[in-house]
């Protein structure tokens, strides 16, 4: 498969891009932020996503979805990134769907059609500390009665306070197991915190939470593959969103270079800025290609996907980070004002950079996967 969008994908982009730009531009984020919205996203906008079939993009057709791939989901995520749109699309429509589809079974039957129909928001409760360390999960699930009892603390759970269900990774006797924990389960408390990018992420406490045996997603002790599917999908999706954030920041900045005058000239005439903008362009193009390659390999079910996913998360992190930093610097003083959007791009990039492993984590993963 060539590494560019085919006709169907280009059509998808042509319908999603104007939709997101019109319905959820940066002003939409500002409005939620300035009204101190308690949900973290707009349910009206989510209903429009549902109308377009977006939450069910990755859901297999047998479960009521569209059966599309990561390349298609990435098209939506890039537009979400470019417009800084607050949305549960990444956690619900990408991460949760990838895990449930990989696992199959009762929970897939229960939740995949609900996600596709827009009836369920799902949160991903993986992280436990300030840094992403999915190999060091301390939350426990002990056998109790007919099912399990979960104890532990989760952090950085986006939409955790409003999710109908959270996918919780916990340690069981013989390995890692993933659980579908409904919001109303006793002993679950979600404490939402406003993050730098105005999103809401919860500290989730699991205090003797009892779930049935069929709450297991996949098999007991064998959750690693399901967790890996969730991580690969979410990381690739976050990388695609970062490409959108970086591209949005870069476009805004390049336009500014063509408008702002100092010393009697457009500042875009200065070679010092031209070269930095041109360098950034190269980094963004490379990041975009890398993310597309990871999407393609995931869609093909290739063995090489895992490596490329980490490469993509790291490269997109570097490139988008550069885009927002150069963006603020090249905007000069107004780049520091709340009124200008460029600062919002820097904030969203910071949150996405951290989500599901930062640049350093994934560079380290690349070293490990190459045996050093």
């Amino acid at each position: 498969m060539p590494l560019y969008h085919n006709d169907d994908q280009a059509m998808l982009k042509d319908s999603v891009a104007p939709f997101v730009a019109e319905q959820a531009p940066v002003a939409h984020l500002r409005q939620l932020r300035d009204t101190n919205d308690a949900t973290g996203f707009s349910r009206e906008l989510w209903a429009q996503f549902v109308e377009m079939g977006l939450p069910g993009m990755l859901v297999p057709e047998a479960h009521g979805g569209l059966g599309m791939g990561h390349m298609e989901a990435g098209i939506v995520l890039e537009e979400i990134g470019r417009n800084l749109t607050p949305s549960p699309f990444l956690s619900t429509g990408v991460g949760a769907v990838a895990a449930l589809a990989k696992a199959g079974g009762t929970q897939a039957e229960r939740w995949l059609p609900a996600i596709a129909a827009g009836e369920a928001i799902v949160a991903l409760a993986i992280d436990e500390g300030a840094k992403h360390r999915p190999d060091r999960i301390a939350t426990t699930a002990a056998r109790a009665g007919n099912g399990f009892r979960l104890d532990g603390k989760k952090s950085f759970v986006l939409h955790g306070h409003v999710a109908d269900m959270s996918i919780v990774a916990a340690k069981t006797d013989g390995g890692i197991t993933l659980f579908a924990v409904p919001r109303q389960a006793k002993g679950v408390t979600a404490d939402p915190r406003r993050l730098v990018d105005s999103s809401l992420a919860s500290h989730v406490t699991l205090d003797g939470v009892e779930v049935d045996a069929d709450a297991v997603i996949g098999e007991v002790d064998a959750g690693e593959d399901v967790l890996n599917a969730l991580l690969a999908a979410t990381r690739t999706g976050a990388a695609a969103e970062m490409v959108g954030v970086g591209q949005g920041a870069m476009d805004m900045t390049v336009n500014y270079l063509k408008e702002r005058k100092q010393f009697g000239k457009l500042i875009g005439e200065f070679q010092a800025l031209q070269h930095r903008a041109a360098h950034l362009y190269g980094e963004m193009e490379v990041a975009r290609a890398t993310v597309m390659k990871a999407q393609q390999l995931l869609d093909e079910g290739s063995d090489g996907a895992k490596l490329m996913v980490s490469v993509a998360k790291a490269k997109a992190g570097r490139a988008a980070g550069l885009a927002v930093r150069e963006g603020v610097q090249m905007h000069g003083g107004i780049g520091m004002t709340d009124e200008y959007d460029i600062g919002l791009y820097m904030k969203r990039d910071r949150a996405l950079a951290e989500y599901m492993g930062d640049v350093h984590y994934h560079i380290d993963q690349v070293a490990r996967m190459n045996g050093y």
Partner: protein
Amino acid sequence: MSELDAFRAEVREWLEANCPPEMREPVRDESDVCWGGRKCVFKNDAQKQWLEACVAKGYTVPDWPKPYGGAGLSPEETKILKQEMKRINARSPLDSFGIWMLGPALLKFGTEEQKVHYLGQIARGEIRWCQGYSEPGSGSDLVSLQTFGEDKGDHWVVNGSKIWTSYADKADWIFCLVRTDKANKYQGITFMLFDMESPGVTTKPIKLISGNSPFCETFFDDVAVPKTQFVGEINRGWDVAKYLLGHEREMISGGGAGGDMVSIGAVFAKSIGKNDHGELDDPILRAEMAAFDVDVFAYRAMGERFMDMWKTGRAHPASSNMMKYVGTELNKRRYELVMAGGGSEALEWDSPETSGGARPRAWLRTKANSIEGGTSEVMLNVIAKRILDLPGA
């Protein structure tokens, strides 16, 4: 089975039957590379056999049309052939500036007669070409070139000199930018082709910081060039040159410039050593190598996307400048890490254990990557102007 799958199977079978085992070994030094030409000396029979088999099949230039010595393959088929060659580590049967640079220019600007004649020679590896672009006073500002061809009716008399002519001392013919109108800067250059054995042509190798001499100074002293031997139009050679530079940048970026999927950290695990956790026993160098691996693997994806888009007319025409910039900067970084990974052993300049200082010489050679074919700074200028459309550039 789809047509492409059938093609892949056919290619696989053909390679199995025609690519000698010796041609599936990694290239160790320059003598393993076949450049063709009148002065070509094959290193062994396998190299000769491999070239001849590929020539017969059109596989030295698989995507060129059949009448010009190619195999007429589509972009998808060409990609499959490359993948299958890579799969068995097949060496390139023929490396050539004719294939990489002059060929694409002739395909676009040449007459039918020129295509049949020159492209056929290139495809068969009969003529080795060199490129006469830069002059001592015209580097980044190439269009200021002074080598002059005086109109003598049926021929030009060319005087002047070129510099950085790669392998001029080994080449048979030169494609050369010559001023034919002193009053017109851009529209006063003709893209000429002539034999390096013409009376009045001399070459002098330039010794570089690597100790090697891959480049020459080339002098023209009353060289007669028939007025049939030019590409495109007289005085419009700059158009051809610009087009060709795009391909040179494509070659530099797609070629050896860091597009490899081999992990640099894995390569150096042995010389640096590992700790009890199986990590490179030098945490900061490990981190730099891993960060480099990320950029290399990312650039490889970029290379794939660039070629997919370039071959189907989807790429921005100036995007080869970005590829060249990113790829060459990456290759320089690779060799900084190669030197750090090799430590004091990588300082040895001529010991037999280090293949005569292969590493430090290669390290020094890479410093030219971001100078030749347009400096990194010129690449950034072009991106700023032609892609980002920034003012005044």
